[in-house]
């Protein structure tokens, strides 16, 4: 029941490479985010004292604080990376496919 246009697009080389690239980036960044977060959560659950180590002899700040703040920054940075790549790469390919198949 597929239209001929859909068949054309799905076999289109640009479309295939767009899907492949986008899903690679999406899943890679998702995996990094999930892995970081669940490592952190397991650290909290099993070794809370590790996060309680001080960053230096004289300081009262524990390494848990920069680690926590870094995860927040990493989350923001990863969305920035995705948007940057998508704006540069995917949008162009998308337009190309749509133009070709009008």
């Amino acid at each position: 029941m597929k239209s001929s246009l859909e068949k054309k697009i799905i076999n289109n080389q640009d479309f295939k490479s767009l899907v492949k690239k986008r899903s690679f980036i999406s899943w890679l960044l998702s995996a990094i985010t999930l892995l970081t977060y669940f490592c952190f959560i397991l650290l909290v659950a099993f070794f809370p004292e590790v996060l309680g180590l001080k960053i230096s002899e004289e300081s009262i700040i524990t390494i848990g604080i920069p680690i926590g703040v870094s995860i927040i920054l990493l989350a923001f940075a990863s969305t920035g990376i995705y948007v940057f790549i998508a704006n540069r790469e995917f949008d162009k390919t998308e337009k190309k496919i749509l133009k070709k198949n009008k």
Partner: protein
Amino acid sequence: MTNYPAITMFFIFVFATLMITYWAAKRTKSRSHFYAAGGKITSLQNGLAIAGDYMSAASFLGISGLVYLSGYDGLIYSIGFLVGWPIILFLLAERLRNLGDYTFADATSHRLDQIKIRSLAACGSLITVALYLIAQMVGAGKLIQLLFGLPYEFAVVIVGVLMILYVSFGGMLATTWVQIIKAVLLLSGATFMAIAVMWTTGFSFETLFEKAVSVHPQNYSIMQPGGLVSDPISAISLGIALMFGTAGLPHILMRFFTVKDAKDARKSVFFATGFIGYFYILTFIIGFGAIMLISTNPEFLNANGGLIGGNNMAAIHLANAVGGDMFLGFISAVAFATILAVVSGLTLAGASAVSHDLYASVFKKGKVNEKDELFVSRISAVTLGCVAIFLGIIFEQQNVAFMVGLAFAVAASANFPILFLSMYWKKLTSNGALIGGGVGLMTATILVILGPAVWVDVFGNDEPVFPYKYPALFSVTTAFIVTWLFSIMDKSKSSKKEINAFDSQFIQSQIGLKKE
């Protein structure tokens, strides 16, 4: 105690938002305006609105209160709330925008049976919205009673009436602008507080933490994980609930349809993640600032040495300590505005589930004229508002702490798995989705009832039947397994058609090519 500066500032806010509603009402003539603000919101505005939906009074006062109470644990909680956002961006936002028009059910039911899937999605949405709404209403009544010195019932009625006005007249356009204004006010207020706290320490984090540790009863323990998550199962389960729950909240998913295309949807998540992350860093500083500045000041303490009004008042008292009566009034008014904006978003999402999913697609089978659907959505908003006022009043003396957790659990176990699988798994069938989503919904609800939050805290039993506070690990897994099982067992003719339609849906989800 009647707080005049707060009431004055709140009146200014209400006046401004009602003007916006009047302006928006004149522009809200069609379905697309009512549900999605005509798709004309920019990505920065939408990012602020999404962040606004997420920065509820509960998360502002609750997380700063949690930091005040136990330090580092508050940060763990914030991180859990934030990390759902990148995942939403990488896996859902663009596809959702490409496939849907007004509600997330547009996307899930794209190639599946309209009646089955829309009913399921509407059920999941309404339950999530209702639980969230009751929790917000009860919280609002108590907070306003405390801040403004107004009676509880009166406060609940004011919140309810205003939200009905915003939503039924101004639709998504008014709801979005109320949310944006509040987000800007909240971010500015929190920034001011954090700077004021750092100013007293000469902008040294070392001094901030040293002073906080020296006055806090748990001393050094506030610098490391404490009792919030003690066993690994609870830790992972909480993580799953926060992450996938966020990706299944109907009022948040709806915001992706207010921008013009997938590109703007993508950019809005980037802005939203930035604002939310910044906000959580501020609440961490505010919480520690509260330990340092107010936990030793008898002006803010009751006879037992606890905070007046409870730990959730930490940020409010801190506002008084650093900025005096005027700033206290400002932050109180912002807290009130926050509640209003969040309940309006919830009501709109609930009303859309009724009018767009249930009325137009299930009851009228898609054969409905726009005027009728618009009328039904306005009536639904008014009805939902009245129900919320009523439930807010009867739940006054009840313990509603479990409700937000349950809302997240239902969103993660019923809404998210179906949304995700409909886009990513070709072999998902309507029957599989209906049974799996239904089972996920039931499992989440039953496990919360049998768990410590309801069985022990509400019903007063000694031991919970189900030992974990957060059921998401079990209920989300169950939902996925049942959906998978009943989809592969489904050999019906209609299911073959649904599987065949995947490719065409896939093309649309990738490049936004609409089927003519």
